[in-house]
């Protein structure tokens, strides 16, 4: 367990994806343990989301209902499912197109890369958990909780996807025989925006050297696809928070879509 935490930490710090670690053009981070941790972190965040139902009913006169416990359980189980299924749906096409454009990434490397990405997302998401629980405890507004959840998931998703694209850029660089040293432009701006020395580089740092255009394009498109699939998957798997007006169900009727509902919740908050 401690070893897994250390591996996750290496991914977050960017140690696992440094240029020197990617020399072979493969990603060799062991991810089995990280995967277990990621599932646990996703479950933890899911529990934070489900806490809304528990806390809301705890304040009411009837006390915590059976439905609330079921919602907590459902959210805890659904969050790992959400990210697992999204990955499962988008992975095959990513690998196929990745191979078509002639990237040297093996299927195992792609899998490891994506697991690392999900690990980054879940670590960020879980760290936002306490804030979410605090708002669950003090807010009765259901639309607000929806919007807050979407914002938090977007933050985590954005950071995870940024991590993915940066690592890819680095992978291409690492495979080049000898990168030419580039003279930094002698301007005032370069003083402030000085690129940190290599050992200071983080997991989110870009390499501003030309990247393998085609593979990069495939991954960029994939990032968009992943976001849309993830959003819609969260819609299919709903309810995560549990509407105060509806009895507990594992899943709801198939109708509407994610974007419409979020827009509605935001409008609701703004009194439209």
């Amino acid at each position, binding site marked *: 367990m401690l070893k897994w935490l250390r591996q996750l930490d290496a991914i*977050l710090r*960017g140690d696992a994806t440094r240029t020197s670690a990617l020399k072979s053009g493969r990603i060799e981070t062991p991810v089995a343990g990280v995967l277990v941790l990621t599932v646990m972190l996703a479950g933890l965040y899911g529990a934070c989301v489900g806490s809304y139902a528990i806390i809301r009913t705890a304040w009411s006169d009837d006390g915590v209902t059976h439905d609330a416990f079921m919602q907590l359980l459902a959210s805890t189980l659904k969050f790992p499912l959400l990210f697992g299924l999204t990955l499962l749906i988008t992975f095959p096409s990513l690998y196929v197109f990745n191979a078509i454009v002639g990237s040297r990434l093996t299927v195992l490397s792609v899998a490891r890369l994506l697991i690392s990405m999900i690990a980054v997302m879940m670590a960020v998401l879980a760290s*936002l*958990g306490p804030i979410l629980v605090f708002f669950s405890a003090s*807010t*009765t507004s259901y639309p*607000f909780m929806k919007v807050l959840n979407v914002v938090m998931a977007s933050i985590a998703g954005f950071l995870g996807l940024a991590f993915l694209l940066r690592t890819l850029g680095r992978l291409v660089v690492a495979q080049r025989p000898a990168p030419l040293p580039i003279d930094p432009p002698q301007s005032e701006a370069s003083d402030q925006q000085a690129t940190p020395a290599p050992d200071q580089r983080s997991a989110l740092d870009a390499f501003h050297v030309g990247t393998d255009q085609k593979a990069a394009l495939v991954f960029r498109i994939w990032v968009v696809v992943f976001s849309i699939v993830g959003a819609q998957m969260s819609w299919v798997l709903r309810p995560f928070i549990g509407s105060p007006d509806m009895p507990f169900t594992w899943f709801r009727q198939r109708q509407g879509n994610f974007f419409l509902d979020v827009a509605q919740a935001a409008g609701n908050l703004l009194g439209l």
Partner: protein
Amino acid sequence: MKAMLYTDDVLRARAELTLSTDHARWLLRIVLQIILFGSIYGAAMGAFGGARPLQILYSAIKVPLLLTATFAISLPSFFVVSTLLGLRNDFAASTRAIVTTQAGLSAVLCSFAPFTLLWYASVESYQAAILFNLLLFAASSLTAQHLLCNFYRPLIRSNPRHRLLMWIWLTLYGFVGVQMAWVLRPFIGHPGTPTTFFRAEAWGNAYIELIHTVLNLVSG
């Protein structure tokens, strides 16, 4: 006297504060400062509308609670984001900077306490009392932000990305802090109502209230 000198160091944002390695002593002093100064201001805040010892006591507890609880809730995200930005090796230093800033914030608040009392002595309106305290909180927060920038200067010099991290922290802390302050109401307490630690209908959402207030203003 020595404690006073230490406060002076905080207000002058001396670099030694964030760089020294005597963690235990530093933490003890900072926490004592937050509790002491925070509760002095809280006590002043609760003194509205005549002597209500219970309200004064509650408010004195709430102000340090507001600062520490907000900090505790926001810290995990700060930790993960600073790791992602590659600033983990400086995590101890940056945490010291943000914690020390809170001691500075409570010292600034404390120095405003006499104004609050004078204001209470001169106005009768409960709304005016609330407004004045909001103003003082805003002024202290701005001052504290200035302190934070000073504490962060050596960090930013060593790695410019600390600037981004600092703004992320301020956003997080502000977002949680506003709601925390809302939840912990009443800080002043309406003189006409019985004194309670929490307000019966207190739980709610500061941001939703804000939106409603603005909408009401706009729609007349």
